[in-house]
């Protein structure tokens, strides 16, 4: 008897948040889609290569209606990567996955994709890759139910911090600070076993001994600053480094961390 020995390849599973446009069709659907067509005419290719999540809570009351709705989006070349506001029991293989727990992100600016200015062909919805089933992380949704009427100048689409959170006391072990919409500033230390999750940057005016996760809503430009670097784990935009990967010469010193081409960089401060 022979047994084929296969080398086991470790499968890496990561959770990551992405920004998606959320469309909320409303009855009467004909009028709503007419408005959508007008928008698409003003900004050609606006939906191209952009993941769209459809909140069907106001447009479908059963699975058949939902399928018809998806077909209408498909005919316009809009790829729908996920559904929101629908019953979990409506899930079907031919329908996009259902998302739960979405949080509002920054408003998107309506910019015509320059690559599409010469009239790029709409994408066939059927060829659009489906979102991976394992993608269970909440997609911070950009409310686009009422899209801005005029074209904005081409700027960065992901707005930086909307709100800041200032914590004026030490963050104790076991505490978790979750602030997905902006920067977090701690005046004091972050203890070993504590955790700060911020949508923007993290500033610690004290020793950072716990975990700091900046840019959790997909902001690669977020940074982590602290007066004493003794962190257990640092993460920016889902990319993480544990204490072992942090340069030992920075330990106990003022330092910062940021992302450069998907690589975490460190430097001393002051």
């Amino acid at each position, binding site marked *: 008897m022979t047994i084929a020995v296969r080398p086991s390849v470790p499968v890496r599973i990561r959770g990551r948040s992405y920004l998606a446009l959320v469309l909320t069709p409303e009855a009467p659907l004909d009028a709503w889609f007419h408005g959508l067509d007008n928008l698409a005419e003003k900004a050609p290719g606006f939906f191209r290569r952009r993941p769209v999540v459809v909140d069907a809570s106001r447009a479908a009351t059963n699975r058949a209606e939902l399928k018809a709705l998806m077909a209408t989006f498909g005919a316009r070349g809009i790829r729908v990567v996920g559904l929101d506001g629908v019953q979990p029991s409506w899930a079907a293989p031919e329908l996009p996955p259902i998302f739960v727990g979405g949080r509002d992100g920054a408003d998107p600016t309506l910019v015509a994709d320059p690559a599409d200015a010469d009239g790029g062909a709409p994408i066939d919805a059927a060829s659009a890759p489906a979102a991976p089933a394992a993608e269970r992380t909440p997609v911070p949704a950009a409310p686009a139910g009422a899209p801005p009427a005029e074209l904005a100048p081409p700027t960065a689409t992901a707005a930086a911090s909307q709100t800041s959170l200032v914590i004026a006391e030490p963050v104790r072990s076991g505490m978790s600070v979750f602030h997905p919409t902006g920067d977090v500033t701690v005046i004091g*230390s972050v203890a070993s076993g504590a955790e700060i999750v911020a949508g923007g940057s993290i500033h610690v005016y004290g020793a950072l001994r716990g975990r700091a996760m900046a840019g959790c809503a997909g902001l690669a430009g977020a940074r982590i600053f602290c007066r004493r670097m003794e962190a257990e784990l640092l993460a920016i935009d889902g990319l993480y480094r544990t204490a072992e990967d942090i340069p030992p010469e920075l330990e106990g010193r003022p330092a910062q961390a940021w992302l450069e081409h998907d690589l975490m960089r460190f430097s001393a401060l002051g």
Partner: protein
Amino acid sequence: MAKVLVVTSGKGGVGKTTTTAALGGALAQMGNKVAVVDFDVGLRNLDLIMGAERRVVYDLINVVQGDAKLSQALIRDKRIDGLFLLPASQTRDKDALTDEGVERVIGELKAQFDWVICDSPAGIERGATLAMRNADVAVVVTNPEVSSVRDSDRIIGLLDAKTKKAEAGERMEKHLLITRYDQARAERGEMLKIDDVLEILSVPLIGVVPESEEVLRASNVGTPVTILSPQSAPGRAYQDAARRLAGEVIQMVIPGERRGLMTRLFGRRAA
């Protein structure tokens, strides 16, 4: 006005029960009427440390559940006037304690005593949160060692979140007591230094109790160290801590530092 003090730490084996007994003894020696309450239901120890294990009839759970009156369960200390023990039950578990029952018993104790000292069980679960819930003041016991310090940090967070004072938006008064401290080992880097612990926990220090044979001896003979050997280093450290709790201002003595000063003096003379 009676004060409810909780002695807590998160980690087990750092000296909560020893501290409860020693502070209780010291506060009673200062003329206060003191009740020490064992919240470690199922793993009671305070009765042993207080030397009252052969006199337990009713316990905290009996009183909480209304099976016994508080006066029946309280055990009077034979050595010091004004010191009483409310023991825990060894046969029950912490689920037998209710929020309302504990609050009622603490209320009754407050009416009779100057100080009510609650000996918290280890951990951060129900028993520990019940013990701290009604407290006005907390003494966080820490060993100069990383796991103990981290657990204390967790408990301090809970004190600021789960106590009635914190829920009412008031500030919980917290004090740090470092036990089992050995200056020589701290200087060799085998132990955290006092400054390191204070820097991590940022809570005011109320005392440093040195590692000592005397503490072990006191436990084994069932007498609080402040009563058995008040002149020993740990006895004095606990007495000073009790005075500071009562509001006195006393200069902090770090055990072993005097020796350091002496050697420095001698060293200078030799040079």
